[in-house]
């Protein structure tokens, strides 16, 4: 295929696909709507990543470096695709600034959007300054300023992490498990304990899904080495007694209501479909699944295919996904794009 492959989105999946294609000698155009590459780990300032414990800026930064400025990779920042026309093998994408890009095929690596906690007002986000999200805690850690209550800058004595905020919740139309938050929360809890050993961390859970090998390295390491405590309770509401936050719920293992004071409450926010997915769906002519993520055509036979021939998808655009799996899917999509032969064209050649 002589025409370049258009990759939409410069996060882990897009960077991985771009690297794989460039390594195979395939020209790539990488379109990113923000002013820099890296996706959520870089744009949202993640701290140390699961499972390698490397800093996001080092690990994902290295992925950016090996793509940016590389021969055969044309990176367009601050760019969005406005229309996408043509046939498989001869697509034309028009950017918002009017630039036209010819592409043989395209890979959508448009990622996800963090759940906005104001949609669960009973848990106090937006009402009390010391109610924060996992993303904010990631930023506290990666900025080097440590764990501090936003209200007055004190180091919290006690932190509660609430799991499944914006996940597994029919009330707000989000029935999926966001897959990563349990492990991320255990990771964050351990980092908090390391940064301020006097801070006690409690995790309120319904189920714990630190899947696979994370069971030992995160679920148990957080308890055995870092003394993080897990409480089986779905929290009903977060209020304040004027001084500290009050976390109310039912401890279901002892069948008793709890009303416990905390200095900081952290929402382990889930992964929503990209807020632009309706637009992406109509611009690229791809179907969304019932949850609002970009639908994959097949699970086994044709990895990365959407309903539209020549348009592939990878990473968290397809559903909640880990960084390492997004990278693997990016490579799989690159493989699919490299091997893609538009129907009818083979016979013509």
């Amino acid at each position: 295929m002589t025409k370049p492959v258009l990759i939409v989105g410069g996060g882990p999946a897009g960077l991985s696909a771009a690297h794989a294609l460039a390594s195979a000698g395939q020209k790539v155009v990488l379109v990113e709507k923000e002013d820099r590459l890296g996706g959520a780990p870089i744009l949202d300032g993640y701290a140390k990543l699961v499972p390698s414990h490397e800093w996001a800026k080092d690990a994902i930064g290295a992925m950016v470096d090996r793509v940016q400025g590389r021969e055969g990779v044309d990176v367009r920042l601050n760019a969005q695709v406005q229309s996408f026309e043509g046939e498989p093998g001869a697509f034309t994408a028009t950017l918002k600034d009017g630039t036209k890009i010819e592409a043989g095929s395209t890979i959508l690596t448009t990622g996800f959007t963090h759940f906005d906690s104001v949609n669960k007002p009973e848990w106090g986000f937006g009402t009390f300054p010391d109610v924060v999200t996992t993303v904010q805690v990631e930023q506290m850690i990666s900025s080097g300023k440590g764990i501090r209550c936003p209200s007055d800058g004190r180091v919290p004595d006690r932190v509660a992490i609430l799991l499944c905020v914006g996940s597994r919740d029919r009330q707000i139309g989000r029935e999926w498990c966001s897959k990563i938050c349990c492990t991320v929360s255990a990771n964050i809890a351990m980092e908090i304990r390391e940064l301020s050993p006097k801070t006690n961390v409690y995790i309120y859970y319904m189920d714990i899904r630190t899947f696979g090998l994370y069971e030992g390295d995160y679920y148990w390491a957080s308890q055995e080495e870092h003394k993080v405590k897990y409480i089986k309770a779905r929290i009903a509401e977060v209020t304040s007694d004027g001084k500290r936050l009050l976390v109310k719920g039912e401890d279901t293992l002892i069948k008793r209501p709890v009303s416990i004071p905390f200095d900081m409450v952290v929402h382990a926010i889930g992964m929503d479909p990209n807020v632009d997915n309706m637009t992406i769906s109509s611009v690229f002519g791809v179907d969304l699944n019932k949850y609002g993520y970009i639908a994959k055509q097949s699970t086994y036979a044709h990895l990365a295919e959407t309903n539209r021939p020549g348009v592939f998808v990878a990473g968290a655009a397809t559903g909640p996904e880990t960084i390492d799996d997004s990278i693997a899917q990016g490579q799989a999509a690159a493989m699919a794009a490299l091997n893609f032969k538009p129907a009818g064209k083979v016979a013509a050649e």
Partner: protein
Amino acid sequence: MPIHEKSLIRKENLVENESLVIDGVDVSGHWSTFITGRSLTDYNDDMQDEIAALPGGENIHRCWQCGSCTNACTVNAVNPEFNPRYWIYLIRLGMEEELLRDKDIIWQCVSCNKCTYACPRDVVPEGVMKATAHWLELKGHTPKSPSTEFDEEFSGQVIKTGKIEESRVIMNFFRRTEQPLAQPWLVALIKGLAFRFPVFYLMRMGMAVVRRPRTRNWAKSRRAINEYVQEVEAANRAAVGAKGGH
């Protein structure tokens, strides 16, 4: 509304006010009985660490609340209130008040160790029960348990003389725990011995009671053991933040 099932509510949670006026309305008397909230209001952040620092409690942090220990438990089969799984949960999260409600049955663990073999996480619940009973004693929540009294009498004799004299261990144990010496089973045992045992052995036993034999050159060992015991007890007291001896 009247409270129909007062028996279901913990006594201390039922409140009557002899004279109470709310918004200008006199609501004194028993018909305005209130039920106070029963929600848990705090965690004791240090509790797990304190009990984990006592012998036997080391692995408490491994528990995942499967309940194998309670299902395997000999005492639970007789008394459903005896629930190691539940107490481990309370300890891990520092629900001290809840644990103290059961302080008078926790020591009843018979150390059969069925829980220890059932536990998939190697928590050693039997050890945790021991450490918890110990913690309750050190904190002054419970008097010394009978088994502690026995252990102290037993080891006290060993430390003093290098030997134990069974009859004195039994006698002193009964005295310490304020039990009558003439236990029916003991009387039966002694009678049986008197009738069936060779005279020679009976004489030796009688002599032992009178002479109180000691191990020779024991003083040096006694000093070393005492030193070690004091060290361990000081460490245990330090672990629970308690002062002085007991």
